[in-house]
């Protein structure tokens, strides 16, 4: 059985929210990944914030971004004896239908050999104290 990355331990994570990130977490609570897009010039932006960097508008709409894939990733291993979580895989996730957004998220439930740049992803969720946090697994990885 090939090594699988651990889920980050989010049991102590109390996600801070403000008016501009709240819609993201509201969506997450309902199992929906929503990303902010300018209501005027239709550019996606990340992280959620009060202005569109392209046209400075404050109109914001929240959309489901469609497919997700790996833009880059790292495999983090703790040194022997180090006070760090076990092997885990932080990744940058991109969304072909939401150009301009790269989301940092953990890759889980996937054999290491299936984790590659460009791999299509499925959305999963991990429980933090006050929020559901998106994590991803590689869609239909080759069986070992």
């Amino acid at each position: 059985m090939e090594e699988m990355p651990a889920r980050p331990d989010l049991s102590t994570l109390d996600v801070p929210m403000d008016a501009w990130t709240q819609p993201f977490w509201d969506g997450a609570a309902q199992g929906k990944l929503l990303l902010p897009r300018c209501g005027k010039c239709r550019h996606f932006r990340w992280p959620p914030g009060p202005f569109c960097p392209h046209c400075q508008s404050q109109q914001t709409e929240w959309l489901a971004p469609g497919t997700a894939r790996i833009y880059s990733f790292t495999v983090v291993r703790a040194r022997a004896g180090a006070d760090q979580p076990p092997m885990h895989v932080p990744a940058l996730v991109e969304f072909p239908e939401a150009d301009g957004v790269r989301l940092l998220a953990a890759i889980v439930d996937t054999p290491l050999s299936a984790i590659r740049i460009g791999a299509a992803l499925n959305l999963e969720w991990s429980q933090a104290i006050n929020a559901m946090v998106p994590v991803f697994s590689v869609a239909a990885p080759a069986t070992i």
Partner: protein
Amino acid sequence: MMQRPAIVGIGATPYYFRGTSAPQTLYELIGKASLAAVADAGLKITDIDGLAFYASGFEPGLITEMLGIPEINFASTVAAQGGGSAGVLDLAAMAIETGRAKAVLCIGACQQGGRRYGLSLANIALTPDGVWSRAAGLAGPGQALALVARRHMHVYGTRREAFAEVVLSSRQSASTRPGALRRTPLTLDAYMAEPMLADPLCRFDFCLETDGALAFVVTSAERARDLAQRPVTIAASAQAGSRDWGRAFFWFNMPDAVFTSAGAEPVARRLYAQAGIDPKDVDVALLYDHFSPLVILQLEDYGFCARGEGGPFVESGAIRLDGSIPVNPHGGHLSEAYVIGMTHIREAVEQLRGVAVNQIEGAEFALVSGGPAPIPMSGAILSNQL
């Protein structure tokens, strides 16, 4: 008439492994480096009338009280963190050029207690738009920049052998320096055998964590002629950055082409224009090497090779002491010490005085870069051609 600024004094404490400089305090280290810099210049501490700080800054009142500096006319701290290290020279240059101050003491220092820089992403207070690193399990800048390194490998075919060459080259240089903290030469086999910490980076790709302080005295080139050392002029200095790079690895939403860079192109453009030279005129490059792949990306940003060709470029031996652009002949952050860019400024000055341990023969122009980090990033071109 505008005064051209020159570095006339350098001072440093010994370099200590993280946490081993006690019982000296941070301000004691700063004081020792400052007094050494002033003495090196042939000046007295009472000649200092300006202070320029790097990173989070220090207390001007405390330093003037402690050292007996009678009066200051200028005190400023660079706005950036790791990206701003060469920015102290920019601040000092502005103070001298405008006549605001006559002799500026530039100070950079670090002393790590319980909180490690290497885990700084895990330690910072979470904010609503900065919670993502924590959620993804990224604990430090090295893990974050591993994402950039892997993408550069994917897009351009850069190999781990290139990262290794940056480290081996640095270690080779440090091997001749008594004050360096990692002096044992490293082989490619040993590098490749080292377990990954944040794939594609192993322990050797991460810089040291060091305690220490460095200080530099900047005055006018005119006054410099009467002082103790061969003057080293600040031919160009910049603190700059583009929105496309922004908060760097605290953001990660750069446009594609910028993601696989070190974010230094705006700084490079300004420096070359201001100094009136090209990359081929640079004799020695002191590139901020917190993580080995970022040296390769800076070589591309600063125009020493084409975009994407940094890997083969370093593998060709180009950055060795006898290469086309020697990089970090002092061993850099990877092998000598990590005092957040300050050791690079010291080495640039020693190279241009002609007294460096690993002297590049006939060096006339030295490039110093600040770290690939949130903007403004910084850099300077120093010269001994008055």
